[in-house]
């Protein structure tokens, strides 16, 4: 993935998050405090304002700048988590103008480790990790098995959506939904949903191959 594609990915994310603002907020009203879409939209709007100034920067700087914007505008739980994820992913490609498949695996891994270190959640707690962890594993395994990027993307997204469905069936153990106990069952996790949306956007931009 080129630097321009990365910028395109980020720009597209700002658009789809805006489109999904109400949807994400609705999901968060059901089991959280009803701000997830508002939070992310505020954050990615700030990221968008930075994009122009990043046109000729390296991938690391781009991601780090986006991370800082997220950290200083989103707030809540998702701000530090997505911020940390972008930050950790950026560190992998510091100074680089191109992201290789190996880089992408490392970035994904580091992002998840960052989220876990910051949020102390694990898979099965009904959080974004229930999407990100299986998605990462599918992505990694696909390449290990020699699949094409298209196929790997497909498998990754498949795992992501499966993870998202899975969040409906479990009790939240982390985040605000946790306080609902049993009542959280049956509801899809908002953060897992935004993670899916972001992954889908990455895949869509890559598929266009611009």
């Amino acid at each position, binding site marked *: 993935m080129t630097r321009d594609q990365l910028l395109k990915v980020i720009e597209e994310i700002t658009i789809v998050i805006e489109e999904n603002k109400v949807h994400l*907020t609705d999901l968060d*009203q059901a*089991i*959280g*405090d*009803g*701000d997830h879409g*508002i*939070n992310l939209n*505020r954050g990615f709007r700030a990221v968008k304002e930075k994009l122009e100034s990043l046109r000729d920067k390296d991938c690391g700087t781009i991601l780090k700048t986006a991370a800082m914007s997220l*950290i*200083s*505008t*989103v*707030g*809540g*739980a*998702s*701000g*530090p*988590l997505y911020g940390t994820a972008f930050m950790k992913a950026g560190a992998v490609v510091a100074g680089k103008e191109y992201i290789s498949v190996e880089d992408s695996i490392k970035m994904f891994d580091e992002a998840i480790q960052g989220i876990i270190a*910051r*949020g102390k959640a694990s898979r099965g707690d009904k959080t974004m990790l229930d999407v990100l962890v299986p998605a990462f594993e599918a992505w990694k395994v696909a390449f290990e098995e020699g699949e094409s990027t298209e196929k790997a993307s497909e498998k990754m997204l498949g795992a992501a959506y499966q993870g998202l469905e899975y969040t409906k069936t479990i009790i939240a*153990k*982390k*985040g*605000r939904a*946790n*306080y*609902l*106990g049993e*009542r959280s069952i049956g509801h899809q996790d908002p953060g897992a949903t935004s993670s899916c949306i972001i992954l889908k956007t990455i895949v869509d931009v890559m598929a266009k191959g611009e």
Partner: protein
Amino acid sequence: MKKIINHPEAVVEEMLEGVVKAHPQYVRKLEGFNVLVRANGPVNGKVALVSGGGSGHEPSHGGFVGRGMLDGAVAGAVFTSPTPDQVFEAVKAVDGGAGVLLVIKNYTGDIMNFEMAAEMADMESIKVASVVVNDDVAVENSTWTTGRRGIAGTVFIHKIAGAAAEKGMDLDEVKRVAEKTIANVRSMGMSLTPCTVPAAGKPSFELAENEMEVGLGIHGEPGTHRDEIKTADEITTHLVEKILEDIDYSQSEVALLINGLGGTPLMELYIMNRKVSSILAEKGIKVYKTLVGNFMTSLEMAGASVSILKLDEELKELLDATADTPAFTQL
């Protein structure tokens, strides 16, 4: 959505402007940040207290900035914990050289954002300690989960740790006192109506005319369960019993906070207090001091919480100390 506001996205900034205009003798706003600090701060050589969280809980937290309570309050978006840079800015502004205590309510977002701010302060060699308030007995405590929420009991931490700092205790001591208060306070709440986050534009949940939410937090989120509306005495009994089950208050003196969530008339809070005090009297628990009013709110939510703080001599003295802030003044 019926609100006296201008633009949903501007509520926090405009509110803070209004606060500063109303109380210039108490607070000033840090330029470019949603942070209120004491007008005459930082206080040299005094441990400083910083609290905060999402907005929508007014008078928490900015209303408690002043002598004997907080030194700084950080205001996030409505119900959204503030970002680390904002918290860090507050820490820098209030540090009087003796270090800063962060009073954090136990929510994933608050913890992470305040933690990141503490890391930033660390890098600039500002002494920072933090305590996490988790007084809500509605939520089961478990090491597998996030644990209990911090709700209205937080006000007691502000008051007591604030008095400790004002008295000249050092950071470790102030932290010790704050932790003792946290260990001794329990709360539980209920609501009759939801509330509407301005930017969301619609109520956080829906309740039928005869329903109430029990065991809920202060962010408009649903509670642990929904129930038919009961009488004030029944509601109060339920809240108090859940609290009393949790730690042993017998033979002790306590402080009470009957806290309104924003849309409940004082009349109803006093009717609840009548029952709280009669239950405690029956159990031989002596009420030393009672606060009644809107201290930690959820926008316009109709509902209330009860907090009970077990006191010892040290806590009593600190609770009684003078405080002078926009929302709480005590001679």
